[in-house]
């Protein structure tokens, strides 16, 4: 039986493209239209992984053995209630409905709660808390932006449809697509014979002579003076996106902050005492500053190159400060290129329930927030927690060694669809459905627009959604806590009954427990 689903949402990156056309045959996705290569890799092939977890497992005598769901739930709840300070980490590849229950579970346990944003765009959120953020939904940029700046990110590879759907290659009400220009550019590059003529015709940047080692930047190309949308890329190396751009500025690694500072001065018409900043001559930066000020509507997108290099949230802070300064001259917006498809959702859901977006702690009965203190890696490296639950994330493949060593010292519960690095290390391993393929829900796009995910195929039999698993663990935790409280009560009663010989009383209590 063949079924075609329209307007299906892709669950890869923060773009959340929602125009996929998915063909399902015999409960299997066989074809997909409109998606990028990354999307196709997951939604047509990847989710059918042979490494799929189909049953809950519990580690017994060092080996993972299949058990019933009830046993696994009880075991997980027992681990979490027994621990003095558990950590619940992950959440960003789950629907916001699951994240919602997650906060309640953390609150019930008095645990630490963190999501993957602490290892990707958490610094962007922290910068926002310091200085605010002038931003816009992606459509606003599509309709109006005549200058697109990609800073320390490579959407061509990481968010493949970003340029096509939201920025330079899309038609907006007030700005037209630059796609044709790009195709001409490509043709010009491939057609060996007509290179020179084509370059003249399309005014594409000529191939420059090899750069001297001191200055990392080429002369500004003529395309910067063209009409229509312009694209500028700042990065430490020439990425695919940089190839497409009208202007590429190669920045020395870890020197973005200095360049932002310099650009801010130049935008405010101030002179600098230096000739080069971060490997870029100040004269080139002046030209970029002019281009920025003269734009009708500019948009800066930044990626992990800012948030995870030296300076982290301070880098983003200055990117925002630059945007803010530019708003005094023209209209400018700035936006992080969020990675996992629902990392924005995790921030959003956590924030409305607790006031804080990530790096949470409930040990005091109320939410506390402090990145550096309650973020997963910092917590694990100090060895602060004594049990971990990982859901829809794979720290096993991404966390530093020291953090992982401390994590596996204590019991570990995992909720993931397939046998990835972290599942193999787990003490209790749950199977779960692929969110956005086998299960619906809500996800938040990088500009925090909520979109409904679609269920297109049935999950393997007996594999529940992660929302259901977390809910059941929560129920079980409540039951265990209630039983414990009851026992303590009876214990106290015993204590009171035998109040006279106090010592015997406490012995009875111990036996009871």
């Amino acid at each position, binding site marked *: 039986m063949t079924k075609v689903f329209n307007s299906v949402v892709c669950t890869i990156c923060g773009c959340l493209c929602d125009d996929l056309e998915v063909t399902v045959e015999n409960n299997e996705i066989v074809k997909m239209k409109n998606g990028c290569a990354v999307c196709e890799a997951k939604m047509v092939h990847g989710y059918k992984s042979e490494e799929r977890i189909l049953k809950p497992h519990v580690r017994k005598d060092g080996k993972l053995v299949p058990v019933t769901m009830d046993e696994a739930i009880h075991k997980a709840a027992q681990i979490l209630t027994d621990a003095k300070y558990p950590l619940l980490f992950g959440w960003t590849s789950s629907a916001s409905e699951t994240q919602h229950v997650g906060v309640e579970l953390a609150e019930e346990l008095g645990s630490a709660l963190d999501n993957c944003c602490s290892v990707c765009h958490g610094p962007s959120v922290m910068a926002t*808390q310091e200085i605010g953020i002038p931003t816009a939904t992606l459509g606003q940029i599509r309709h109006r932006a005549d200058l697109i700046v990609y800073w320390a990110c490579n959407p061509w590879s990481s968010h493949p449809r970003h340029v096509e759907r939201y920025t330079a290659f899309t038609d907006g009400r007030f700005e037209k697509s630059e796609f044709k220009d790009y195709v001409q550019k490509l043709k010009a590059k491939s057609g060996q014979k007509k290179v020179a003529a084509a370059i003249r015709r399309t005014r594409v940047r000529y191939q420059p002579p090899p750069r001297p080692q001191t200055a990392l930047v080429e002369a500004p190309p003529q395309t910067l003076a063209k009409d229509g949308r312009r694209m500028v890329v700042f990065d430490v190396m020439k990425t695919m996106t940089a190839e497409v751009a009208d202007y590429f500025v190669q920045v020395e690694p870890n020197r973005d902050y*200095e360049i932002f*500072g310099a650009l801010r001065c130049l935008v405010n018409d101030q*002179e600098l005492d230096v000739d080069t900043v971060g490997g870029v001559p100040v004269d080139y930066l002046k030209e970029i500053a002019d281009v920025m000020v003269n734009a009708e509507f500019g948009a800066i997108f930044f990626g992990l190159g800012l948030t995870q290099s030296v300076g982290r949230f*301070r880098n983003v802070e200055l990117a925002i400060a630059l945007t803010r300064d530019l708003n005094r001259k023209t209209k400018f917006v700035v936006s992080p290129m969020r990675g996992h498809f629902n990392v924005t959702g995790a921030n959003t859901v956590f924030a409305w329930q607790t006031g804080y977006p990530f790096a949470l702690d409930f*040990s005091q009965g109320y939410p506390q927030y402090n990145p550096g203190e309650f973020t997963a890696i910092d917590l694990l490296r100090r060895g602060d*927690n004594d049990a971990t639950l990982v859901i829809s994330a794979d720290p096993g493949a991404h966390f530093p060694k020291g953090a992982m060593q401390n994590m596996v010292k204590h019991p570990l519960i995992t909720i993931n669809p397939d046998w990835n690095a972290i599942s193999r290390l787990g003490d209790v391993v749950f199977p779960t459905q692929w969110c956005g393929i086998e299960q619906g829900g809500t996800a938040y796009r990088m500009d925090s627009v909520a979109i409904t995910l679609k269920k297109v195929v049935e999950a393997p039999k007996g594999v529940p959604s992660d929302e259901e698993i977390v809910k059941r663990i929560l129920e079980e935790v409540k039951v265990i806590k209630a039983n414990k409280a009851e026992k303590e009560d009876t214990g106290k009663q015993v204590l009171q009954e035998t109040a006279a010989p106090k010592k015997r009383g406490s012995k009875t209590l111990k036996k009871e427990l």
Partner: protein
Amino acid sequence: MITLTPKRTFTVPIQAACINVDVFTGKTLQEIKNLSITEGKETITLNDAFDITEDKTIETPNITLTGDFSKVKRIGQGMKTGEIVINGDAGMHTGEKLSGGKIVVNGNSGGWTGSEMKKGLIEIHGNSGDYTASPYRGTSTGMRGGLIIVDGDVGTDVGCYMQGGLIKINGSAGRYLGFHMLDGTIYVGKDCSIRAGACMTGGKIIINGAVELLMPTFTIDSVKPKVKIDATQIAQGPFYVFLGDIAEHGTGKIFALKATNPTLSNYEKYL
């Protein structure tokens, strides 16, 4: 004097804002033992975690902590008077919002030591962590007064949004020293990492060692033979004096020792 010694090695963090002279004053030893703290999510008494003894013959320090307190957070938080001596490492938020009195750490101190401090003295005879004397997330009022002395090195983001007082670091300093500083003084005995004084609008940073890289948003003002640290101390130069952060229209000053900073000599042409 009350002495606290850990009964065991702690794994999960302990929040103990009650280890505070203001709280202990007027309480009997038994009452102090029954003060509640949290270990992870569990609420326990001070006595569950520490051996507590009292020596009535000694007046100061009022509280002595002996042993490893690196997992104990918020020691002396918001303290107004009295003295705490920690013979060992202290945890995060030690002396946070201190508004008087004295805290001495004979060891290293964790992050956010002396955060949002108003008055008083914190002496750290080891290293101090990131965000020493810096405010909580999203807050733009930092240290307002008082004195912090660190014998060793400090981490990153020290003295952010500082509005007054003095931070004296005898070792070297990490990135973003005096970020967004408004007033007050920071002295660094040894080297200073990148982006010192970024976004500062006032106050001064004195660097007696090498500056790794000066922000391009600073402009040279003059060369001065010496500079005042506080009423009693003067640092001998000559120093390059830089003004900034001009991106914030700031008038903060960075004093960088001429002898240790030959790379800054190319600024001399603008003098």
